[in-house]
C-alpha cells in the first residue's frame, strides 16, 4: 500500500488522537485528564499543519494557530487554575466501571467507522480515511461526559468533543470557513467562562462538585 508521506503522517496522528481519546475515557485523575486534553489539542494542531502544508490551504495555518493557542495554551491553563482554586485534584469516580466503558467505547468506534464509510468515499480529500476516527473521537468524548459524575471532567469531555468535530471538519472538507471556526472558538471560550462560573455556584450550593446533587432540582 503506497500512500504519500503526508497522508501517512496524518493517519498516524489520527491514530494518536483516537488513542488519546481512549486514554481520556479511562483516566481517573483530573490533572492527567487536563494534560491529555492539551496533548489532544497538540496532535490536532500538528495534523492541521500537515494538511495545510501538503494541500497548500493557507487558511488552515490560521486555524492551526488558533487551535494551538486556544486548546493547548489557554484552555488547559484555565482548567489548571480552576481545579487549583476549587481544590479538586483527586480521583474522579465514574458511574460505570472503566473496563465496561472501554468495551462500550470499542463498540462505538466500530459503529463510527461503519457510519463514516459512505461519507469518506464521497470526500475527495487526502485525509478522507480519518473521518471515521474523527467521528469516533466525538462519540468517545460524549461517552466520557455521560460516565463522569463530577462537573469538571464533563466539561473536559465537552471540549474534547469539540476537538473531534474540528478534526472531522479538517478531514472531510479541509476545514470550515474561517468565520465559522472563529465563531466556534469563541463559543468554546465563552462556554468555558460560563461553566467556570457555574462550578463555583454549584460548589457554593452543595459544598461539592458532584452533579448528582443536581438531581434534587427535579420536579416532584
Amino acid at each position, binding site marked *: 500500500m503506497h500512500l504519500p508521506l503526508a497522508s501517512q503522517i496524518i493517519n498516524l496522528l489520527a491514530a494518536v488522537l483516537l488513542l488519546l481519546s481512549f486514554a481520556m475515557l479511562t483516566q481517573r485523575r483530573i490533572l492527567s485528564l487536563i494534560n491529555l486534553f492539551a496533548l489532544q489539542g497538540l496532535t490536532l494542531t500538528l495534523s492541521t499543519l500537515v494538511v495545510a502544508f501538503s494541500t497548500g490551504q493557507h487558511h488552515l495555518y490560521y486555524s492551526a494557530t488558533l487551535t494551538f493557542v486556544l486548546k493547548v495554551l489557554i484552555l488547559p491553563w484555565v482548567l489548571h487554575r480552576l481545579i487549583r482554586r476549587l481544590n479538586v485534584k483527586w480521583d474522579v469516580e465514574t458511574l460505570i466501571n472503566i473496563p465496561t466503558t472501554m468495551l462500550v467505547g470499542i463498540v462505538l468506534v466500530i459503529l463510527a467507522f461503519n457510519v463514516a464509510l459512505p461519507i469518506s468515499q464521497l470526500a475527495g480529500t487526502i485525509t478522507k480515511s480519518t473521518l471515521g476516527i474523527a467521528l469516533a473521537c466525538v462519540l468517545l468524548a460524549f461517552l466520557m461526559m455521560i460516565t463522569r459524575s463530577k462537573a469538571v471532567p464533563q466539561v473536559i469531555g465537552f471540549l474534547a468533543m469539540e476537538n473531534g468535530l474540528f478534526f472531522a471538519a479538517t478531514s472531510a472538507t479541509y476545514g470550515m470557513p474561517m468565520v465559522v471556526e472563529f465563531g466556534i472558538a469563541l463559543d468554546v471560550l465563552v462556554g468555558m467562562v460560563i461553566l467556570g462560573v457555574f462550578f463555583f455556584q454549584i460548589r457554593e450550593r452543595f459544598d461539592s462538585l458532584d452533579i448528582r446533587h443536581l438531581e434534587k432540582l*427535579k*420536579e416532584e
Partner: protein
Amino acid sequence: MQLILGVIALWLVLGIAGVFFPRNLLLVSRVLFPAGALGALLLAAAALDALGGEIQSRVLPLGLPDLPFHLRLDALSAFFLLLLGAVTAGISVFAAGYFRRGEGTPPGLQCLYYHLFIASMALVLLADDAYAFMVFWETMALSSYFLVTSDHAKAEIRRAGFLYLLIAHVGAIGILLCFGLLHGSGDYTFDNMRAVQLAPVAATVAFALALFGFGAKAGMLPLHVWLPEAHPAAPSPVSALMSAVMLKTAIYGLLRVLFDLLHTQVWWWGVVILVLGLATALYGVVFSAVQSDMKRLLAYSSIENIGFILVGIGLAVIFQSYGMRALAALALTAALYHAINHAYFKSLLFLATGSVLHATRERALGKLGGLIHRMPWVAWLALVGTLAIAGLPPLNGFVSEWLMLQAFLFTPNLPHPYLNMLIPVAAAAIALATALAGYVMVKFYGVVFLGQPREPSLASAHDAGTWERAGLVWLAAGCIALGIAPVAVIGVIDSVTGQLLGKTLGASATGWMFLTPIGPERASYAPLLFLLGILAVWLLTWLAVRRFYHGRVRRAPPWDCGFPAQTARMQDTAEGFGQPIRQVFEPFFRMQRELPTPFDAAPRYRVSVEDHLWYWLYLPLARVTNALTRVVTLLQRGRISVYLMYSFVTLLVLLLFVR
C-alpha cells in the same frame, strides 16, 4: 387607508400615554377615551368611504427583515372596520365614564390594553398576509386576556382568563395550520393563497382547520365554554367589545378564508357550518334562558347570535356551491346584517349591565328588580336593545331574522334530494331559537328593570353618568337607525357580497322605502310604515285611554289574593321564570337540585345548571392531557448523565438512520 392607519396609530399613542399616567383618572377618562372614540368615528367614516372604492394595498415597513406586513383594504375589510369603528365609538364614550379608581388594574393600564385591543382588531381586519394576520390575532388575544383579568385578585377571574387564553391559543393553532395548507409552495401573502389551487382533500382539511380555529374565537359549539366565563369576568365595556367586535373578527376570518382564499366551495361544507350554527344557536339560547347572572345570560345569548350568523354563512356556502348566487347573496347579507346588528344591541345591553353593576354592585338577577324607577335612562335605552335583540319590528334584529327566514324559504329549490327537504326543517329550529331569544329578553328586562326592588339596598341606586348615557344613546340610536333604514344598510353590504360572491342583493331597486330582497311578489318589508303604524296605534290607544277612562278613575286597595302582607320577594324570580325552559329542555342540562323538606324551618332551595359538554368533552380531555404529561415527566430524571444519554442515543440513531 391613510386615515385608517392614522387612527390606529392614534390609538396606540393614546394607549401608551395611559402607561405614563396609570393613576391619573381625569386624564384617562376625560381625554384619552374620548379621543379614542373620536378616532373610532373617523375610522368608521373612512371605512364607509372605502366600501364603494377600489381595493387598496400597502406594505408596512414593519415586521421581520424580508417579511414586511402586507395590508389590504377591500370591501370585506371595510365592512368589518365600519362595524368596529361605529360600535367602538359608543363603547369608548361609555368607558370614559365607566373605569374607576381602585377596581383591579389602574385606569391608565386599562387604557393601554383597551386601545391595543381595538388597534389590533383593526389590523387583523386589514392584514393581507398570514404572518401579519397571526401577529395581530395574537396581540388581540393577549390584550383582551389582560382586560378580562383586570380584576385579577379573584381566583375565579384568573381561572376564566386562563380558560379564555387556552382556547384562544388552541384556535390560533388551527388557523396557523390552515394558513400553512393554504399557502401551497409560495410565500405567505394572501395574494399567493388566492392563486393556489388546492387539491380537494387539502382544501377540505384547510376548511376544517379554519372552521375550528375561527369557531374557537367565535364561540361555536363545542368550543364555546370560554365565552360564558370570560365575558362576565371582564369589565362591562370590555365584555361589550369582545362580544360585539372580537367575535365578529372571527366571523371575518371565516369569511375571508371561505370565500376569498379558498378557490372553491363544496356543498357539504355549508351543511357542516349550518348544522354547527343551528346547534350553537339552540344551545346558546336554551342556556341563556336558565342563567341567573345577567352577564352570563348575555354571554350565552352571544353564543346564540353567533350560531345565527354561522347559519347564514352555511346557507350562503350551500347556495353558492350550487351556483344560486342571488340566494347566496341573500343568505350572506342576512348573516352580515345580523353581525352588525348584534354588535349594536349586544354592546348596548352589556354596557347597560355595566351601569346597573356600578349602581347596585349586583350581578345576580335574583337581587335586582324595579330599576326603571331609579335608573330611567339606562332602563329605557336598554329597552331599545332588548326589543332589538328579541327581533321585534321596527328595530334592527327583526330585519336580519326576516332576511334569514326569507333565505330559508328558498331552500326547497336546491337541486339535491335530501337537502331540499331537510334544510327547511332547520328553518323551524331558527324560528324556535328566535322565539326563545324573545323569552330570554323578557326575563332579562323584566327581572332587572320591572317589578319591585328585591333588595332594600337598591333604593340607593343612581342613574348612569353623562358619558355613560352618551355611549348608550349612540348605540340605541344605531339600533333604531339600522332597523328603520334597511335598504341603505343593504346597499352597504352589497359591496361585500359583490366582492365575495360576484352577485348583490340589489335591494335598493324598488326604492328606499320597501325592502324587497327577491321580488315584490314574494315578500317586502317597510319598516318606516311599520313604525308609523305602531306610533298611530299607540297614539290612538293613548287618546282613547285619556278620553274614556281617565275621567272615571277610582282609587281603592287592590285585591291581595287574600294575603295582605305582600313583599318584593314574592315576585317571579329569574329562576322561576326560567323553570319551564329548564323542564322542557332538561336533556340539555346537567342539573343538581336541592329541595327543602316541607318541615324545614329555614328552607333553602338550590339548583345548579351545568353544561354536559364540560363533563363529556373537556374534563376527559384534561384528564388525558394530565396523564400524557405524567408520562412525559418520566423523562425528567434530574441526572445530567441521563440527559446526555438522551442526546447520545439520538445522535447514534440518527447516524444509523442516515446511513
